[in-house]
């Protein structure tokens, strides 16, 4: 009498695939759907962790592109400070699928960008990119012009990319009663909170997957060949407004996002899921990939995740570059430490985190 487990590969069994191995010897964690060629254009957006993917792609000789470039004479440190080359255009963090849908609608001209501007001490802040410029903009017009450039650059990313990598970050969101969404709660990084106008929503599975599907559908209108690679940020929440303990809120949030990403990859041929979340967060890693604050992912974790990304690609398709090819790119990356990762959500620490 046989049973369905008898002929399964060792990767299907915890004992063989995990317990009897060093965590660094775990293999075949990802079965990539797509052969990503070095000359194919990849864009990255989403939560903080997406920044690592863009860098790693550059580091390995892949064609990560940015469509919104800093002036050539701006130093790399200042370019990062002004959020150039952090994501493929200067959108700032796109934490939720509904924010992704909002940006995509703006890019395709399906809806206009709201007129809201946050003013504080004579400086002007973009409600949809509140920390994109240190100290804000000099005028509302300058802010809007800058956002128009970012929207145009985001559109160009969709039009030209072969792969759109998106890292799902949060389920908790803040919206205006008029229907649009902010990436951060007003009054944290900038702006002022108004309970009559600003609405908290902890999005559920249905609304998140709908937001993702709607975004993908719109992007395909612009570029029918674009493919999507989803990841879930392994970084825990900085703060929660859900009423739950932040640990419980984090696990719930990440579980929902993971389920959404998995379902999208299962149901859509042009969507894949890369398990960076599992590599960092599963029991196999024993938490060693986190900094002492148990939130930020250390560079060993980032390296481990990205090594798995490229190793799995090479194992399936072969012939892929594995290490830095360009001295210039290597130099750029050498200067970028984990401290350079731009994570707006961490600003929430200023509101209660230090108590």
């Amino acid at each position, binding site marked *: 009498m046989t049973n369905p487990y008898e002929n399964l590969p060792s990767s299907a069994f915890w004992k063989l695939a995990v317990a009897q191995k060093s965590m660094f010897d775990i293999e075949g964690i990802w079965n990539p759907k797509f052969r990503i060629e070095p000359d194919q254009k990849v864009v990255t957006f989403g939560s903080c962790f997406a920044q690592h993917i863009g860098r790693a792609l550059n580091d390995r000789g892949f064609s990560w592109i940015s469509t919104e*470039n800093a*002036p050539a004479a*701006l130093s790399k440190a200042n370019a990062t400070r*002004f959020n150039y080359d952090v994501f493929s255009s200067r959108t700032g963090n796109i934490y939720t699928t509904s924010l992704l849908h909002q940006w995509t609608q703006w890019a395709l001209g399906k809806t206009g960008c709201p007129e809201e501007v946050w003013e504080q001490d004579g400086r002007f802040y973009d409600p949809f990119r509140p920390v994109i410029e240190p100290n804000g903009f*000099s005028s509302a017009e300058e802010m809007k*012009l*800058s956002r128009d*450039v970012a929207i145009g650059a985001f559109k160009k990313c969709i039009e030209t990319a072969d792969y759109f990598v998106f890292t799902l970050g949060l389920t908790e969101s803040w919206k205006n009663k008029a229907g649009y969404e902010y990436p951060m709660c007003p009054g944290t990084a900038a702006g002022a909170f108004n309970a009559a106008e600003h609405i908290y929503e902890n999005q559920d599975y249905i609304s998140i997957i709908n937001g993702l599907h709607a975004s993908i559908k719109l992007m395909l209108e612009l570029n029918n060949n674009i493919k999507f690679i989803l990841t879930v940020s392994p970084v825990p929440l900085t703060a929660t407004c859900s009423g739950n303990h932040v640990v419980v809120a984090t696990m719930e949030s990440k579980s929902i996002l993971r389920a959404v990403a998995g379902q999208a990859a299962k149901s859509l041929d042009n969507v894949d899921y890369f398990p960076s979340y599992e590599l960092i967060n599963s029991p196999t890693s024993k938490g060693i990939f986190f900094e002492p604050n148990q939130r930020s992912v250390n560079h060993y974790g980032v390296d481990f995740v990205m090594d798995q990304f490229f190793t799995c690609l090479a194992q399936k398709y072969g012939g892929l570059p594995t290490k830095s090819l360009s001295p210039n790119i290597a130099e750029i990356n050498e200067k970028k430490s984990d401290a350079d990762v731009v994570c707006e959500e961490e600003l929430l620490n200023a509101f209660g985190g230090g108590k």
Partner: protein
Amino acid sequence: MQEITTNPAKSVCIIGNSYVGAVYKAYENHKSEYPDFKIHFYTAAGRDFPLLDIVDNAVVNVKFSNRKEYDNINSYDAYFIYGDMLSPHGVIQLERELTRSAYSKQVIGCTVTDDISSSCTLKIYNKLIKITQAPVYLMSHNILQQTKLYLNNEQYFKALNTLEKILGDNIYHAFPEELFDNTFVPKDIYYSGSVGIDGRSASQVAGHDRYHMNEQGGRLILDSILRKVMAN
């Protein structure tokens, strides 16, 4: 020309790029008129200029000099870094970029400051002031003229003013009014047949470009430099 004398003789070091050519030619052809000065030139033109550096008390990556040894660079009575100070090239590039994209005033301001801060002139200046007590002056090339032609950028002038505040008297504007017409374009007699400098010698590589000076223009600048030395 006004006779400039000093006793004992003063040694002057001029480090720079192709713009030094006119000054060098003026000095070489009229050396006898400056018996109380000994001037050494250390130059690298164009894209070689950023490679000029001070290492272990010596100038390195020199492409042309009227001295055979490049060491003991700390032994002069005065230093002039002449040619690329506050290089406008990055800002000219920024002007072009602004026609294609929009940048905030903050980004423009930081770009200009970054461009200036990364200039070879400031690199050499910062090294020289660590190894000598003698005055070190920064001299731009004919920046007013280039600025007039290509730039209309208040941020650039704001950055220049900031730098002047930081460096104070160490910035020396060596161009006498006599050099220019009323639109900051050099008068024809000072740029016609203008002189640059290449890897071998001062030569007429510049020709007629209106940025470099000819020997006559170089002599006005040389006199201006030596007056500054005398004033100390």
